[in-house]
């Protein structure tokens, strides 16, 4: 009976929406810039899951191609973001985003 239930594409899309919401909440609540980056990764992964699910739903490979490019851009984004974090941390000891309220010399 239970084994007969198959997860449809809607289930995957709703899961991706929940993951996106959790990521949004994390970005707004957490104060450590590294953890904020991780929450952005959560949101990117939610979008990737949506793209792959829709590629299956409309039977088109282009959804998976977009995910490939998103992964490349995400890797570049993390490299640049962490470079900025390292450069900021080296000048001051603060580890939370609140310490950056006055972004001047």
């Amino acid at each position, binding site marked *: 009976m239970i084994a007969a239930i198959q997860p449809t594409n809607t289930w995957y899309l*709703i899961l991706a929406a929940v993951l996106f919401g959790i990521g949004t909440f994390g970005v707004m609540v957490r104060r450590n810039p590294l953890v904020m980056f991780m929450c952005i990764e959560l949101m990117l992964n939610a979008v990737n899951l949506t793209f792959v699910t829709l590629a299956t739903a409309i039977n088109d490979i282009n959804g998976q191609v977009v995910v490939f490019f998103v992964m490349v851009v995400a890797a570049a984004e993390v490299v640049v973001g962490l470079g900025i974090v390292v450069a900021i941390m080296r000048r001051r000891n603060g580890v939370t985003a609140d310490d950056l309220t006055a972004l001047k010399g």
Partner: protein
Amino acid sequence: MELVVFVLAAAMVLGGALGVITRSNPVHAALSLVLTLFGIAVMFVSHNAHFLAAVQVIVYAGAIVVLFLFVIMLLGVDKAEDINIEPITVQRPLAAVIGVGIMGIIIAAIVVADDVLVERGAGLASTTVDNPDGNIRQLARSIFSDNVFAFELTSVLLLVAVVGTILMARRVKSNGAGK
């Protein structure tokens, strides 16, 4: 069977995501992120996106999370942050409202537009025993023909990112020490 895979992978994804936003230690948050990324990779496999599942594990879990952990160790910020402090008074309730609101809007759109999702593409090659590289062939054909310009631009993006990061992270010598 597919239901079991979905439930387990969904538990991994949501558990990891909640771990990322609730663990006070950044190292634990990064390890929770790995759990989420593996769950997403499982879902890619169940959608016949085998190449993307492999790339997900290699690039995200292998490279990006290691980069996170490396920066955490390099900066020595691996001490737990007190997450009970709420710097702005209504920040958390407001963030919860916004997060749940975005979630609700997307889910409503998904449910409403459910019957619009009809098969209209050129077709996905499924990976079978007879055709073990169907997915990667189709993906490569699309990337290197239809999307080749975007693919070339990606190389420029990566080059700019690498050069920019080196420029930012470089220790600038003062005039006296440089001589």
